[in-house]
């Protein structure tokens, strides 16, 4: 457009670099300009909006006022004792509460509110059709949250620094508390974004808002009490403290990644690949869990934690499977364009491709991997490893918790894998039949699988209760379809269900194999979907972009010089 070459209109602000060419200030401005170009546009926009927002200004000034009021009041209460008493902790605790309220309640809720409102009034749509994808939008929101955190922290920073000058508190504890709170705030904000992403668009998400607000308030009070205890607990020199920190860091990263990818999935259209990244994150989370449980067995020698791994993994994969087996089996041409080219690639990686059958395979694969590792942890090799690492000389649990017979662990694993194969397999078949009539929404997937589990658990339970002869018998082989009670018997009680072990380990795998076989045609149909060729227009565009990148001096658009 020719009018781009026109000089600036009268009164239009000229670039500083034009006014002060060659000066250090101009170069600094130019550098800042380049830096700002690299920033996420959402961050830039939300920073500008926040600075004018009444909520932000009120929170900031309330924090500031509260901080100063407590500084004066606290010092007045301490009097000359400020010089010699250990008052740092109590002063810091009140400052912490002032800081935690915006970080743990206001910021996460505003993150939720911002995305939910944007989706409701369709502002989100306008942003979603720019070059920013769902990942970019979520990262922008999270960067904005980070910036808000910094600003709130800066308001209380002088107060926090002041507590360090008092007795009874070391700098490291202050730093740790602040870092923990910032990380928790970021995580809760991601939870808020997830809530906003799963809320139905163009409707006021009242339920989600109330649930999130209640959750945030609960976390705030739990955090306050935990931090109060942490400040009194001097564990920095204890290696176990750092091991626990490391395990929490891994858990945090896994949970954060899964929540982020779930939110991204909800914000991405169905013709895109919404599964692969999430499946990788889930597999990594499973591997991490196995790793940490193995480390726990090595460190503390308590092998009964293996049952915890089996129970938690079964519950988690059932939950995940509810969504996965309800995916559409038809891959869009766009997704098919990125399928592996080679046959070995397709064999090895097809369980990561979207689709209910591949997802079913993926869940079973992870369960089997977990089962193998759980059984390995009960073998003598592991005890030798423990002795070799020297952990056995540090801590030893009571003998009753040191031994889990491999046979029993194997049984629990077989039963767990079988239940997952049966319930998800049957659920997949039902959802597949329903899909012929209408689209399957996530709520429907949950309803079908929960109903299935409920019937499987409830029916034998009611039958047993309704018969006076069996009412007080406890667990009986009748409960074979009751996955919840059976797994509870294995994992919480730490032993095979009385009188039902052989029935469970023979019948359940047979049923599971039958259900799996019934699902094989679906899997074959999914595997047959061939890689789609790249459209010629896309290849042409790729070539154009590559040529343009090679000649960077060439104007990239009519706006360029």
């Amino acid at each position, binding site marked *: *457009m020719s*009018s*781009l070459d*026109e000089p*600036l*209109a009268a009164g*239009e602000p000229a*670039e500083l670099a034009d006014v002060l060419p060659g000066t250090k200030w101009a170069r600094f401005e130019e550098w800042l*300009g*380049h830096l700002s*170009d690299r920033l996420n*546009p959402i961050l*830039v*926009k939300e920073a*500008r*909006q*926040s600075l*004018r*927002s009444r909520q932000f200004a009120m929170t900031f000034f309330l924090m500031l006022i509260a901080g100063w009021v407590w500084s004066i009041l606290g010092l007045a209460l301490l009097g000359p004792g400020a010089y010699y008493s250990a008052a740092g902790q109590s002063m810091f605790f009140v400052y912490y509460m002032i800081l935690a309220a915006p970080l743990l309640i206001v910021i996460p809720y505003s993150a939720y509110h911002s995305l939910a409102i*944007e989706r409701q*009034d*369709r*502002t989100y*749509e*306008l*942003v*979603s*059709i*720019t*070059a*920013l*994808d769902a990942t970019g939008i979520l990262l922008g929101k999270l960067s904005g949250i980070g910036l808000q955190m910094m600003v709130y922290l800066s308001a209380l920073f002088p107060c926090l620094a002041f507590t360090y000058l008092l007795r009874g508190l070391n700098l490291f504890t202050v730093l740790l508390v602040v870092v923990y709170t910032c990380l928790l705030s970021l995580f809760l904000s991601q939870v808020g974004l997830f809530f906003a992403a799963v809320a139905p668009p163009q409707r006021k998400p009242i339920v989600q808002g109330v649930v999130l607000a209640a959750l945030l308030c609960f976390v705030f009070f739990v955090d306050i009490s935990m931090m109060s205890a942490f400040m009194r607990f001097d564990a920095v020199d204890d290696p176990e403290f750092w091991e626990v920190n490391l395990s929490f860091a891994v858990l945090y990263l896994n949970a954060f990644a899964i929540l982020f990818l779930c939110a991204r999935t909800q914000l991405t*259209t*169905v*013709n*895109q690949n919404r599964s692969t990244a999430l499946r990788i994150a889930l597999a990594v989370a499973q591997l991490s869990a196995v790793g940490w449980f193995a480390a726990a067995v090595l460190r503390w020698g308590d092998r009964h934690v293996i049952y915890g791994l089996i129970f938690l993994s079964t519950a988690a994969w059932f939950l995940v499977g509810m969504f996965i087996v309800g995916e559409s089996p038809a891959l*869009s*041409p*766009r997704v098919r*364009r990125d399928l592996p080219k080679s046959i070995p690639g397709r064999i090895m990686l097809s369980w990561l491709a979207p689709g209910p059958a591949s997802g079913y395979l993926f869940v079973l694969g992870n369960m089997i991997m977990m089962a193998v590792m759980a059984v390995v942890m009960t073998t003598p090799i592991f005890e030798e490893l423990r002795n070799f690492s020297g952990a056995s000389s540090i801590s030893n649990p009571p003998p009753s918790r040191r031994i889990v017979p491999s046979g029993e662990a194997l049984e629990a694993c077989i039963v767990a894998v079988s239940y997952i194969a049966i319930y998800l397999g049957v659920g997949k078949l039902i959802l597949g039949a329903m899909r012929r009539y*209408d689209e399957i929404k996530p709520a429907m997937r949950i309803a079908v699988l929960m109903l299935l589990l409920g019937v499987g658990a409830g029916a034998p339970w009611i039958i047993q209760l309704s018969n006076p002869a069996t009412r007080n018998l406890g667990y009986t082989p009748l409960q074979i379809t009751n996955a919840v009670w059976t797994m509870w018997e294995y994992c919480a009680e730490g032993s095979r269900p009385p009188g039902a072990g052989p029935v469970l380990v023979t019948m359940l795998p047979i049923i599971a194999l039958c259900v799996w076989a019934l699902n094989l045609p679906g899997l074959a149909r999914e595997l047959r979907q061939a890689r789609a060729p790249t*459209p010629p*227009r*896309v290849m042409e*565009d790729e070539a154009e972009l590559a040529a343009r990148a090679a000649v960077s001096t060439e104007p*990239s*658009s*009519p*706006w*360029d*010089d």
Partner: protein
Amino acid sequence: MSEVIDTNPQIELIHLQRRFGPVMAVDDVCFSVSRGNVFGFIGPNGAGKTTSMRILATLDLPTSGDAFVDGFSVTQDPDRVRTRLGFMPDYFDTQPNILVEEYLDFFARSYGLMGAERQRAVRYVMSFTKLDGLREKTIDSLSKGMKQRLCLGRAMVHDPPVMIMDEPAAGLDPRARIQLREMIGQLAADGKSILVSSHILTELAEMCDTVAIIEQGKLLAVGTVEEIHRARQTQRSVRVRVLENTEGLCNWLEARGDAHNVQRDGPHVTLLHDGDQETEADLLRDVVTAGFRVVAFGSHAESLEDVFMRVTEGLVQ
């Protein structure tokens, strides 16, 4: 159903279908828009215009069929489509606490424009949409006309070759409407392909090269107003004014037999006939020969509104 064949269309809809439960919102719609053309999309409320436009803007997916923008499929390559498309929906952005210039700057950044290129784009768009004087105003304080111009600015900030505008003139005062029409004309002159829907048919008739009429999700007609008129019209309308004896002219015309639906309309007489312009010339000669003193004689050209009313049946889903 007619189809417009174009060898290098900027917008192309191929057997597009979109179903919402039992309702077929868009049913086998096909048309294309060439470079530099303004294409009008007309239809009653609920006809499927907005759904078709949302599919083109990659905000919705078709149940079957496909749509292409600059050769890229909206279902397969939405990311490439988005960089080539400016969408102006029938609703406003309601972002709080953001200035006009910052708003445009945000969208320019979101489309990947950087540094001086972005500043020039924002400056040009503000100048084009005459928003220069409002750069320091927050967008929630703008009037409807100003917001509409801002929407146009946002849609064109990345200089897309294709623009889609859903009811851009709705609720605007006459001056704002004229300004908008001029801007659309300028954009088309710059080579952009524009798909625009409106209820104000006189506006569309003036700015569009081609129109499509849609009802109940089905495309009823595509072409220029004249083409649709020619394709649909079986009878021509004539309007005659005589100095006196209007009643006599009515009787004389009815007695002829080749004129239908002869009606007296104040000093005028209107009629329909099955012939062409030559028939009209013969009729005029005969009326004068019969002794009627003719003041005005003309065939009535159908407006877009007439064509719309004739083509559609007022059905809604």
